[in-house]
């Protein structure tokens, strides 16, 4: 656990990677007992809008229920300030009241209206754990919470084919034995698919449609093409870059 001085705006141009390895903590959180329980990840104070920033996409606002009862407007102001920045906005509520149901209901409603994810902690240690977990898992894939998948490639193909709604496992087996490879199944015509035993006209139609769908949805397909062409339209000269640099430094 390391605390450093607040960085001044002069340091902003430094590459962002030097900071994303740790959790950024808002100065206002000084004195919060949960800070001394953040031990598994590094953190430092910084000039940020939310209370805690984890990476570029996750932020947390901390609120104690006791404090909320005394200052019910506080959270509204913080939320207004935060707006829609960040992909995942978490409201970390520490439940320190004996009878929290009414204020909790209130906060739940607020979260639903302002697109916040509500997480509850019953002690500062738990709150710290929550922040640590977000840091640890911020870039992890969801494999832990997904269904366990077989490692056998043959079984995987069967699962993949049966994920297309009307096709079941027996049909998948039939397809593989008839056509051999996935390539063949994809290449074959709809009529030929319908000729397989157990696969009639409707199944074949759905299967064919699924296999030949483009990956990107229609709207996105065009968008991508457009941005690609626009990307390198403007030529930027070295001089321009240098002047931009100076501009930033002088701020």
């Amino acid at each position, binding site marked *: 656990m390391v605390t450093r001085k607040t960085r001044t705006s002069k340091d902003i141009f430094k590459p962002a990677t030097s900071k994303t390895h740790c959790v950024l903590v808002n100065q206002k959180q000084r004195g919060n007992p949960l800070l001394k329980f953040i031990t598994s990840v590094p953190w430092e104070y910084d000039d940020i809008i939310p209370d805690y920033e984890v990476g570029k996409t996750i932020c947390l606002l901390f609120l104690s229920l006791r404090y909320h009862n005394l200052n019910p407007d506080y959270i509204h102001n913080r939320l207004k300030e935060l707006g829609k920045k960040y992909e995942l906005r978490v409201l970390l509520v520490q439940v320190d009241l004996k009878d929290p149901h009414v204020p909790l209901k209130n906060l739940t409603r607020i979260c639903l209206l302002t697109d916040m994810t509500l997480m509850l902690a019953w002690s500062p240690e738990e709150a710290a754990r929550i922040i640590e977990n977000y840091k640890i898992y911020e870039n992890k894939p*969801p494999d832990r919470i997904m269904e366990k998948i077989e490692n056998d490639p043959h*079984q995987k193909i069967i699962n993949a084919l049966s994920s297309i709604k009307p096709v079941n496992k027996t049909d998948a087996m039939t397809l593989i034995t008839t056509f051999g490879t996935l390539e063949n199944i994809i290449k074959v015509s709809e009529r030929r698919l319908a000729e397989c035993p157990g696969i009639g006209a409707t199944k074949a139609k759905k299967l064919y449609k699924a296999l030949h769908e483009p990956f990107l949805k229609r709207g996105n397909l065009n968008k991508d093409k457009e941005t690609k062409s626009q990307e390198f339209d403007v030529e930027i000269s070295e001089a321009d870059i240098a002047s931009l640099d100076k501009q930033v430094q002088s701020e």
Partner: protein
Amino acid sequence: MLCTMKLVPVQLKTGFIKAFSNSPVSFTFGYHQVEKVMRALFVTELFLWPRFHGTIIKSLKSRQAQVVELHVNLTTNMSNIQTCLLDIMNYTVKQLKSINRTLDMKEITTENCVTKKFHKILQSQLDCVWHQLSTRTKEYIQDLKVLRSMIINLIHDDSVSFYALVSKYRTPEYAKVNSGWILLDSAEQLFRLAKGRVYNNKNEFDPEPTPKWKCLNDLLLEEIPEEVKKKQAGNINNTKILILCQDNRTCSQLNHYLTMGPNKYLFYTAFRRDLTINAVASKYKKLKNPCVKIDNKDEKPIKINNKEEKEPKSNTKQNVTHDTMKYELEDNEEEFNADESKSNYVLTLTQMASQIKGAKELPNESIFEPISQIDNLDITQIETEKPIILIQTFKESGNFFSLEKTLESFRPEYIILYHNDVSAVRQIELFEARKGPDELVSKVYFIVYDKTVEEQAYLTSLKREKQSFELLIETKSVMVVPSYQDGKTEEYFNLNVEDENDSVDTRKAGGQVTKEKPVVIVDMREFRSDLPALLHKKGINIEPVTIAIGDYILTPDICVERKSISDLIGSLNSGRLYTQCTQMCRNYSRPILLIEFDQNKPFNLQGHFVVSSDLSGADVQQKLQLLTIHFPRLKLVWSPSPYATAELFYELKQGRKNPNVAEVLALSGDNTADDMNYERYNIVVHDFVQKLPGVTSKNITRIMNKGISLDNLITLNQEELETIIENKNEAETLYSILHVKATPADLNKEDKLFGKKKFGGKNLFYNKK
């Protein structure tokens, strides 16, 4: 179920509802159970008729049957085994409780383990928190069930079957999945004693007969004929004897015992249970028709020629029932012959008792034989000169009234209760009281093992019944029943509906009163919980439908998936929650995950996800957070109880449109809703590609962005795939799976020998000793 009841009184203002129950104990589970049921059934008065009620005592006193209690002693071996088993059970219960201190386990005691209601107790206490229990806890529970089956088998089954059962657990495979009791001294003693009951110290097959058999034998051959002599001046014909026992297996056992004799029956059982017999004690050598050869050197058992045994013997008045044991021994379901599924048998004496007087034991020849008759013969029409013995279970295939029917039609003079059952006793009392004045008073023989769990279980059930009635009487005296509970007035339904603001405001929709009754679409499977009824009470109409995505649809945008803590943990671990959230987020703009707490638990324990102290909740917390990272649009709602949830739903619906049933049903999960722009990719092909070998959650986005389509992917060569995926191995795998024929893997999965409930077939548990 609760909701349909609500609709009845609303529509029928006349008519009445009367409900009957014969199980006072069921009303003691949970809180205010009897009030809840009365409310749900719209009944306002409670009448209680316990056995100790004055009216009942008076009416039954006039004519009472003669009761003789026969206390049979267990053999030394049996009573030592019983002690061992109780020891082991105590140990297991203690361990179970020590790692689950926060759970209410006062119903899980050794005493209750042996009662019939044990699995129901387990269910009511543990089902709702099943996923919050550690693996070790579940092992303990499984072992408790195993031990229970053993102790019941000890009391009710013969020594050979018991030994076969116990030997199943003496294998190294079971030791691996066992929770630890097998290492106790008592366990070792148990195995030794069980064997000692079947093989004597010369290792010869010499099983001890069940003590109750001798008692039954004496009754049938000596005592009853004596009685008959006294009353009917020696005419033993037309005497009717009813033997009652608990389950089909015992019926069959008694049937075989009486027709074959104990030695032959035990011998036959040993072969059916695949026991190895190297030598037999001397009394077996005198068996008539020794149709078996035993090779002393050979370890393998030789099956007896039991073709004749397989033919169905006596008739049955009722149809042959195919569901076997009424008594559920979940861990001990071996294959039985078809005639074990019969629930009653009819036998008669072949020789007069006087002819075999002096022989204290049943010789090997049977003196009872089955009455062979054609099917569907009515018992009352049996016209024979011989006495009739009917062996039956208390409840034929779960029918409570079968005993009553039998008593009325068969009218036995002597009833032998081979097992005990409180309701059977009551039914016999009633039968006796109803008899005409010229009929003989019945004599009832109670055969019970002295100082055993059987005796204890009977006394416990009597005690429980008395306690439940006491509780009910107390409840009745303090119960408050509102006058509108019969549902015949509108008052009941309007009580909790909040007043709607009826004022007309021209600023809203130009002065029109846009008054739509609020509707929530509820998934059919949710009706097991209280929430739909509470919603209805709040004034929200419920639309029960089977929906594929979500549990409650509040508005066209809001979809709610409801989870209790236990369900949350279970579905997080299995991956189901991830799939559900994916589908919700694809189809609704405001998906909600509702986590509901257990309102009966004190609030300060709510922070702990898990119940068992040897399990950490950190894992669950991490998984939940990971879920929120991958579904940022998913909102979490933490609700302390269904009441709070109902309130929340009501508030959420304020000022919003009602959901449309047709639209909701159309969402099958195959396509995203048309107006949803959250998904970048076409989901069917995305999900297909996601499952292919070589595709991981890390490279799927790259593949989707640059792959264009499957048609395109198959035209690329391996290097081009590698450029897209940016990983050599994964590209190789994907390339090969697209272009090379895949072969099915070998089926070398280890067969789980000790699955959740069943064990392997007979042949695996081969006793080599």
